[in-house]
């Protein structure tokens, strides 16, 4: 099963003050906060980790049919960032979700997650300016934020 999440970096900058007192503590583990504080592009790391959690959560909530707002329980692991790509894992209780993230300059961060690693390669991603009428294309996972619409197909 796949899940995806897009963060419009311009929108995120407008909507969220991640430096607000308490903000990071509610969303990120101590290790994740260390990654953020030690990154020269701290805001980008915030949204990279956030999109990993959101993409993994989308799968988990469909699997369990449970909706919870528990960002701290979604734990990012083994993150490797290389230029404009990142891979990692998100642990949620006894589940592991594999992630592949694309960083598109200052525009957006998009993460695809799956509980089966080969699906990350098999999935097709389509990112466009937001528009309606995409439902008929039957995407497996949909993410909309700010200017962007990201569709993931298997």
């Amino acid at each position, binding site marked *: 099963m796949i899940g995806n999440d897009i963060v419009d970096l311009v929108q995120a900058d407008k*909507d*969220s003050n991640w430096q607000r*007192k308490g*903000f990071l503590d*509610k969303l990120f583990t101590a290790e994740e906060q260390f990654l953020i504080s030690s990154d020269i592009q701290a805001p980008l790391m915030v949204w990279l980790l956030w999109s990993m959690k959101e993409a993994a959560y989308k799968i988990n909530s469909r699997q369990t049919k449970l*909706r919870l*707002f528990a960002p*701290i329980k979604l734990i990012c692991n083994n993150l490797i960032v290389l230029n404009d790509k990142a891979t990692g894992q998100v642990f949620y209780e006894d589940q592991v979700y594999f992630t592949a993230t694309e960083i598109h300059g200052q525009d957006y961060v998009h993460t695809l997650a799956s509980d089966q690693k080969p699906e990350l390669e098999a999935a097709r991603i389509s990112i466009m300016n937001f528009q309606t009428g995409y439902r008929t294309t039957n995407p497996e996972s949909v993410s909309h*934020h700010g200017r962007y619409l990201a569709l993931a197909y298997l």
Partner: protein
Amino acid sequence: MEKEEIISRLKPIISTYVEDKNTLEQLNEATDFIKDLKINSANLVDIVLDVEEAFGIEIDNLSMERMLTVGAAIEIIQTKMEG
């Protein structure tokens, strides 16, 4: 604190993070922050932080997990203020 008073104090907090203000007209206990008000999940944390400040309470992670509706928020506020 009565539910009505909590709702009236919650409304301006929630409103900050809602793009389509029309959705706030029907605000009630069943209102879902994400599904009904289209609040993005990162801003849900801002609501939690604003509520903590406004009501002088601390919302632990376990309570935050459930805080997806106005009704759940009211219940959490009431419990924390009694405690």
